[in-house]
């Protein structure tokens, strides 16, 4: 079944106010065009999650899309603290979001547990810290500290997560949604597979035959996927291995802009609301910074070796 569509339709048809949404990426393969579309469509009251959140989550929070955030960390990397996040928690602008905090061990494990149909999973972090004392919207279900039924020793267990929708950006997918990646994975494979349905954006749509030339690269099978969007440069200002580098200059631009409410909204107007889709975004990028700046981000070529699955 051909699931190729536009990001506008993918988001409009599959993500609803109040949904629990997993958004993949780790600077690597951030699904930024989907994030912009969520903002453009004015989605509300979302619960969002992923390990090590960055500018994309900050932007969603600043835009008022987010009600709840299952988090481990959020920053702008080299550009320091996440401004919109801070404004939300320190000053209630645009509103205070509810936060439930885990770590880069427990949250990926909770997504893996969700993907694998486990009710909970034991982890060895959190213990002895104030992360145990603070309980947000999950309340007493944030974790349980039990005595192991095997040896009686204390074991921490955390609940599985199953988002309503997972959004990931990948290098390539076929029209049905078989999605392939290479390079840094973050919690992408398990976040997507834990979700009840998956929206895939990709740098290139390839044939089912090409998928079959290297099936070990597939992280999500087509039967979980509800929409496939061919969206080159979708991770910008993040990067996609083999396609383009991270745009540190744009990161600085966002940092500066998001340092004030006014700057943030001007940024949103320019880069989100005033561009209807990713093609217009790229057009605007080139208009504003020049083709040379765009070209400079494109990846060098250094291909590896092909392998055979034949017998």
């Amino acid at each position, binding site marked *: 079944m051909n699931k190729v569509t536009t990001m506008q339709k993918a988001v409009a048809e599959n993500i609803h106010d109040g949904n629990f949404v997993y958004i993949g990426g*780790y*600077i*690597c393969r951030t699904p930024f065009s989907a994030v912009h579309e969520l903002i453009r469509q004015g989605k509300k009251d979302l619960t969002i999650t992923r*390990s*090590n959140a960055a500018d994309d989550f900050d932007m969603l929070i600043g835009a008022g899309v987010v009600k709840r955030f299952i*988090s*481990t*960390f*959020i*920053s702008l*990397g*080299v550009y320091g*603290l*996440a401004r919109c*996040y*801070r404004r939300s*928690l*320190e000053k209630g602008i645009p509103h205070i979001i509810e936060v439930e*905090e*885990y*770590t*880069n*061990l*427990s949250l*990926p*494990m909770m997504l*893996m547990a969700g993907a694998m149909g486990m009710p909970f999973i034991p*982890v*060895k*972090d*959190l*213990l*002895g*810290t*104030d*992360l145990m004392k*603070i309980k947000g919207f999950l309340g007493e279900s944030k974790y349980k500290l039990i005595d192991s039924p095997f040896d009686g*020793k*204390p*074991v921490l267990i955390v609940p599985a997560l199953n988002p309503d929708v997972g959004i990931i950006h990948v290098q390539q997918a076929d029209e049905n949604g078989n999605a392939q990646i*290479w*390079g*840094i*994975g*973050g*919690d*992408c*494979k*398990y976040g997507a597979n834990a979700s009840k349905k998956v929206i895939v954006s990709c740098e290139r749509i390839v044939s089912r035959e090409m998928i079959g030339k290297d099936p070990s690269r597939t992280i999500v099978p087509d039967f979980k996927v509800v929409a496939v969007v061919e969206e080159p440069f979708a991770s910008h200002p993040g*990067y996609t*291995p083999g396609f383009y*580098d*991270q745009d*540190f200059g744009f990161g600085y631009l966002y940092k500066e802009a998001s340092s004030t409410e006014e700057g943030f909204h001007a940024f949103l107007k320019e880069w989100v609301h005033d561009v209807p889709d990713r093609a217009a975004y790229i057009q605007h990028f080139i208009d504003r910074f020049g083709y040379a700046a765009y070209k400079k981000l494109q990846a060098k070529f*250094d291909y590896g070796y092909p392998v055979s699955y034949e017998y």
Partner: protein
Amino acid sequence: MNEHPNDYIKPELMACCGAREIMDGDVVVVGTGFPTMSANIAKHTHAPRAVLLQESGVYDARPRRPALSVGDACLNPGAAMIGGLVDVMGMFLQGGWVDVGFLSGSQVDRFGNINTTCIGSYDQPKSRLPGSGGANPIGALAKRGLIIVQHDPRRLPARLDFITTPGYIDGPGAREKLNMPPETGPSIIVTNKAVLRFDPDTKEAFVASYHPGHTIDEIRRSTGWNIQVADDVHETEPPRVEELSALRNILDPHRMIKIYEGKGYV
């Protein structure tokens, strides 16, 4: 005998202090900045077989530029293994394979507990910080935690506003009581004034050495608790020629490390 050039800056000395804690063959989880520099100084000097992991899923990366985040594009080409968080944080760290983990924080207490969550109260923070990320599990599970922090009473307070990452928690026996893996915990705090180590009995950090130009008295005044001093306290060994050479000629030819001076590491 080692030669010690005297044209080093404080962040270089601190990176060298970190490097010296890494033993040959160690599996090291690194972030960016200091940790990467320390680990790589070690690799280029006394610990050529130390190996590096980034929590994002990377093992034995071969970056051609300094990585500006643990998910940096430059960590991809040439790495020995790339998976995801579950591989590095679950399979390698929680699996018990990580010898050394680097940590830093806005506040560190006498037991090596770290705060990267908030200044002020959690519910109404004066300043909201990024949160744990990988720090909490690294603190919980690495065999030796190496903590980097600026030395002032605000950053080394008597009491943290929030414990994000466990050191020895509230002292001897605390980790054991929680069934945390044996023989794990912080082993050193490197500041811009001193090297602190942990007393095996009290689990409190004490002054093991003071950096050239600093005094015990200054260090005591800059610490938020009544810090103990080792009987054999001595001056920190300055960077060796080969350490500086690795750092400046190979790892950081543009001396990006200087930005830490601007951040107060002087």
